[in-house]
């Protein structure tokens, strides 16, 4: 390996790391709608939320109404720490400011039956680029992996036994 190769390797990996950081932290180019007050009605029944995905805008004052249709259900929103419990046929309410954009899982917080651990919904606070940013990181991962691969004739090829049985 020539002396310039480690330097080139560090430079390329540094550049990819920089790109990765940018993918994670750069503000979203999507316009943010003016924040407003919203009331979201969410029905809970074994073992789903209706609607399963709730979308609000960043900065919105969200009043979440949870209506339990059959048994006691709860809703815990990851990342926001919001939690409420609704008795059967009753509506529970809570209000919070959706100040963090992204995708957050809503989990039932009251054991409600066999599929309870998997009863979940999604809170989407726009502009949510979670999936886009994750996909960007995945693309960079492919590039990094391809770059890090041992060169043919280099370490890996020598380390490994013949790969195809004759």
């Amino acid at each position, binding site marked *: 390996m020539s002396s310039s190769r480690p330097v080139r390797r560090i430079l390329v990996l540094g550049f990819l790391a920089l790109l990765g950081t940018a993918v994670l932290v750069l503000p979203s180019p999507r316009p943010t709608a003016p924040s407003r007050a919203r009331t979201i009605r969410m029905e809970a029944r074994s073992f789903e939320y209706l609607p399963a995905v709730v979308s609000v805008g960043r900065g919105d004052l969200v009043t979440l109404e949870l209506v339990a249709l059959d048994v006691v259900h709860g809703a815990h929103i*990851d990342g926001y720490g919001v939690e409420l419990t609704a008795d059967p046929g009753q509506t529970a309410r809570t209000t919070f400011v959706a100040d963090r954009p992204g995708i957050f899982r809503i989990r039932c917080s009251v054991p409600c039956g066999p599929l309870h651990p998997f009863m979940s919904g999604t809170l989407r606070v726009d502009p949510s680029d979670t999936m886009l940013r994750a*996909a960007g990181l995945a693309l960079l991962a492919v590039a990094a992996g391809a770059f890090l*691969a041992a060169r043919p004739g280099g370490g890996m090829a020598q380390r490994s036994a013949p790969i195809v049985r004759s």
Partner: protein
Amino acid sequence: MTRYELTQFAGVRRLLTSRWPQLGIQLLLLSGLILVILAGLLGSPVGNRNFAIVMVWIAWWGVLMLVAVPFLGRLWCSVCPLPLPGEWLQRGAILGPRGRGLGRQLRWPRIFRNLWGQNGAFVLVALFSLPVLTQPQWTAILLAGLVLLGIAVSLVYERRSFCRYLCPVGGFIGLYAQAAPVEVRVRDADLCASHKIKTCYTGSTAGYGCPWMVYPGSLTTNTYCGTCMECLRTCPHDNVVVNLRPAGADLNIGRGRGLDEAFKVLLLLGSGLAYAAVLLGPWNAPRAAAAAVGTTPWLVYAAGFLLFVVVLVPGLVALAVRLGLRLSRARLSLAQALRAISPAFVPLGLAAWMAFSLSFVLANLSYVPPVLSDPLNLGWNLLGTAAMAWSPYGAGLFPWLPVAVLVAGLAWTSRRAREIAGELGGGVRLAFPLWVVSFVITIGLLWALVG
């Protein structure tokens, strides 16, 4: 490739070759298994309150997938309680070789000496996984059934044929143990070759011949080694060692892989994706169908699951390999190329299962202390934690923790795909379709877990 021999330290070798620490852990886990089966049959039918569901599918699964397999390889198999009753009956002993065992000690049928049996067992269990994961009686029946099957196989066939050829969990662990940074290997293969008696395989007064039917002198991957440490006990030259090594060193080994192993890689990768979508997606319909065993929706779900994990995902990867062969003009058959390339997908598969496990294990971990306090739902409060409320752990780490795990797995898979493509003479042209298909599968996983 750099190795660091752990057994060079006399204390470590003594610890690993002594039967008492291993037996102590085995007995503890066997007691736990009996308690799990009892709790599953007699305890609360509410999964989150039942010792069987919480300890098996949250505590054990979490430790297995997030710690044991990625960092310790097959160490779980060395203390797993499932095959113990059968093994003890077969040997007629619990500790060292003594006494006469029961059973016929037949060799496993030649036609089944491969991973197809484990692949089939995994698919079979996977079809019933939702009731198994959520209903205590199903968990108890599955585990008791595996113990009984282990006994039956041990009484007819030699050694650990059950673990080697049938156990669905063993196949899973064996595949991903290749990524682990530990291994059992021989220090000097020439010494093994010159050792005529091969006590590591035939056994001696110091220990049993390899229960996994592996000759340590030719061991190149962790897939088939149960890390039971018998070969450390029986080697008169202390030539069998436990090494720390670079993670995933086995994935650099191209030799000796069959289509059964290649299929397992893709089957488990597809299953990880399917589980993430069905169990953690926001849609209840597939979950409800998966839980309603025997109904028409379940049949539709089962058909869809089989189509996805047995046909679609392996087919997609095979298509990418075929395209790569055509683009690169590498002179290989599709089967040869699949066998050689499949290890590249092991890191992505492991990452998929780790990300999936992170997403539900941490959220449900707080169910563990209450069931430890009252394992049989008799109103006990042994640890003072019976009334502990549910609280999701690490909620602030989501969704980026599973994303980070998946991205790391994808980077590793991309790297290994490029290296294997180079070794096969296909270069970037062979690697490119593999990168595309890995990226597409990762996007599917991201969509299911955080999308």
